[in-house]
């Protein structure tokens, strides 16, 4: 097995017993990328030089007995909406083409100081707005399991890279499911932490009250490892939690015996593929067999979650993206006046989905519509929090499919925004509530396309979320790897 196929834990062990060097590991990752990028386009930028320097420093340090921690020497990919000093960061938008940030995001400095080797910047839907990575201004990414299909989104590049082995782990961002849904359709583990536990400083904002950075990995244990490296209080983010953080992996070996697992009634039925529902149902039975108590739970407000999300997220995005005006950085179009220049630069720089959401958000905040739209959406959000709180009085975790469908065909939903938005129906509630949730692969459908299982937990419930996720992983015994048809590039 090539070293690029190793789990973080296995690679960390080999780096320390001397059977593997960070440089060797990086080179196998880079050659895997060289073989697959033509088909997948998982990366927007591969930082060959920076990564090679970081790898050799990692080797020198280990040789000198300096161990920077579990990620020391491990090749990690970053979604291109996290700023990296001096390395082009575009959020997959024309408006930031060529932009070199003067600072590092907090997660980036934490990975660097942990000895990680940053391979490059992965593709995404422009400004993380989308569920297929087809909204990238620099071309779509494709799914390693079937390159005629999408890798989900918006963190599709990160998911594809981890699934294909052109990174051992990656960071994504999740505003309405953008880590969990691509993880589900590419057969990897994707996790959204409790809102406020991973710093957003240096994450190019889409919807500030919903955005959260999280790990994409090949297994649950790696997810714990990567999360542990990036979370914790950051004084540069006023929404960063400064209280006590739990030990995320503390439940890994505990099993589910006696746990109460709630199955969400609203996240099933119309629009859900039978094979997805079947696989999820089978896993629930396995969990029951493993000693868990299964309880069907109804959260009626979930029926309004998608609508509320498509008012709140665009509203915040309309303000967050106002700063892209052609003055201090990014694309500038000609114009005789500031206003003309700004308007032209923005309409040239933003793609259709981003433009659509800016207009949508401007509408729901504007005079005369605020109360009926944005204001009412905030009430729905409160109702969802209340429903979750009520449910967690009787269950320890909630489970559902991660995505109602497996990976869909490229181009299938681009013409119909609403159909595209429906891809996030299962993931959005946890963003609105700020709670942690994870997607674990539990099998493939008859076309061989991965199916994801979502485990949701209350705020700071990462330990119990991982506890259940690791059992799901064991029960599923999912170990398939994608076969990527190589085409001469």
């Amino acid at each position, binding site marked *: 097995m090539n070293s690029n196929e190793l789990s973080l834990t296995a690679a960390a062990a080999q780096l320390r017993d001397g059977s593997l060097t960070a440089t060797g590991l990086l080179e196998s990752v880079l050659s895997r990328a060289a073989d697959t990028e033509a088909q997948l386009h998982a990366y927007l930028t591969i930082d060959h030089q920076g990564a090679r320097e970081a790898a050799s420093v990692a080797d020198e340090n280990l040789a000198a007995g300096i161990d920077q921690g579990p990620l020391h020497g491990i090749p990690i990919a970053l979604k291109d909406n996290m700023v990296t000093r001096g390395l082009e960061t575009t959020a997959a938008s024309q408006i930031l083409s060529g932009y070199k940030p*003067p600072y590092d995001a907090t997660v980036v400095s934490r990975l660097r100081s942990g000895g990680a080797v940053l391979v490059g910047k992965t593709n995404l839907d422009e400004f993380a707005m989308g569920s297929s990575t087809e909204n990238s201004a620099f071309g779509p990414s494709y799914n390693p399991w079937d390159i005629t299909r999408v890798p989900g989104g918006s963190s599709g590049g990160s998911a594809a890279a981890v699934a294909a082995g052109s990174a051992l782990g990656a960071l994504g961002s999740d505003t309405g499911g953008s880590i969990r849904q691509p993880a589900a359709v590419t057969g990897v583990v994707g996790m959204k932490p409790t809102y406020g536990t991973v710093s957003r400083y240096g994450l190019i904002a889409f919807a500030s009250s919903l955005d959260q950075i999280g790990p994409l990995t090949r297994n649950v244990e790696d997810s714990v490892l990567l999360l542990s490296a990036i979370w914790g209080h950051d004084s540069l983010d006023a929404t960063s939690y400064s209280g006590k953080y739990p030990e995320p992996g503390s439940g890994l070996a505990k099993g589910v015996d006696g746990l109460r697992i709630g199955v969400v009634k609203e996240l099933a039925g119309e629009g859900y593929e039978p094979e997805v529902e079947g696989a999820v149902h089978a896993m629930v039975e396995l969990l029951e067999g493993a000693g868990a108590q299964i309880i069907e739970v109804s959260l009626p407000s979930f029926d309004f979650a998608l*609508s509320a999300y498509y*008012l709140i997220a665009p509203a915040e995005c309309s303000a967050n993206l106002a700063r892209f005006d052609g003055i*201090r950085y990014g694309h500038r179009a000609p114009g005789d006046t500031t206003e003309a220049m700004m308007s032209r630069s923005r309409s040239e720089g933003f793609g259709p989905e981003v433009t659509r959401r800016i207009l949508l958000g401007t509408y*729901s905040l504007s005079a005369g519509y605020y109360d009926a739209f944005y204001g009412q959406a905030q009430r729905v959000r409160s109702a969802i929090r209340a429903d979750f709180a009520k449910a967690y009085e009787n269950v320890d975790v909630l489970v559902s499919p991660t995505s109602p469908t497996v990976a869909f065909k490229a181009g299938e939903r681009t013409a119909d925004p609403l159909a595209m938005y429906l891809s996030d129906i299962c993931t959005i509630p946890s963003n609105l509530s*700020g709670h942690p949730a994870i997607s674990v692969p539990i099998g493939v459908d008859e076309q061989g396309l991965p199916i994801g299982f979502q485990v949701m937990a209350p705020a700071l419930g990462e330990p119990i979320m991982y506890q259940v996720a690791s059992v799901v992983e064991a029960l599923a015994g999912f170990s398939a790897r994608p076969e990527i048809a190589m085409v001469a590039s």
Partner: protein
Amino acid sequence: MPVEIDIAHLARLARLDLSEAEMERYQAQLSVILDHAARVQSLEGEPEVEVAHPLGFVNAFRSDTVTPSLDRDEVLAQAPDSSAGYFVAPPALET
């Protein structure tokens, strides 16, 4: 309820320079999405609007201490136009 949308006004507020054709297209798409989004209005009850952080904390402040600023050349290197340490933009015409 049919939602009325003044797309030209929205584009102006958002500083987007859209063609007639684009405006028509976005107007149509927005009304579909907003018709669906209007479902939020049928939520039962009137729960209080939640402004608090999901972890419920308040008062996140910094102490009044000066930290180093950025290097001006590194900052201006990213600007489309700059001169003598300033960013340069076209004239602001108030019309």
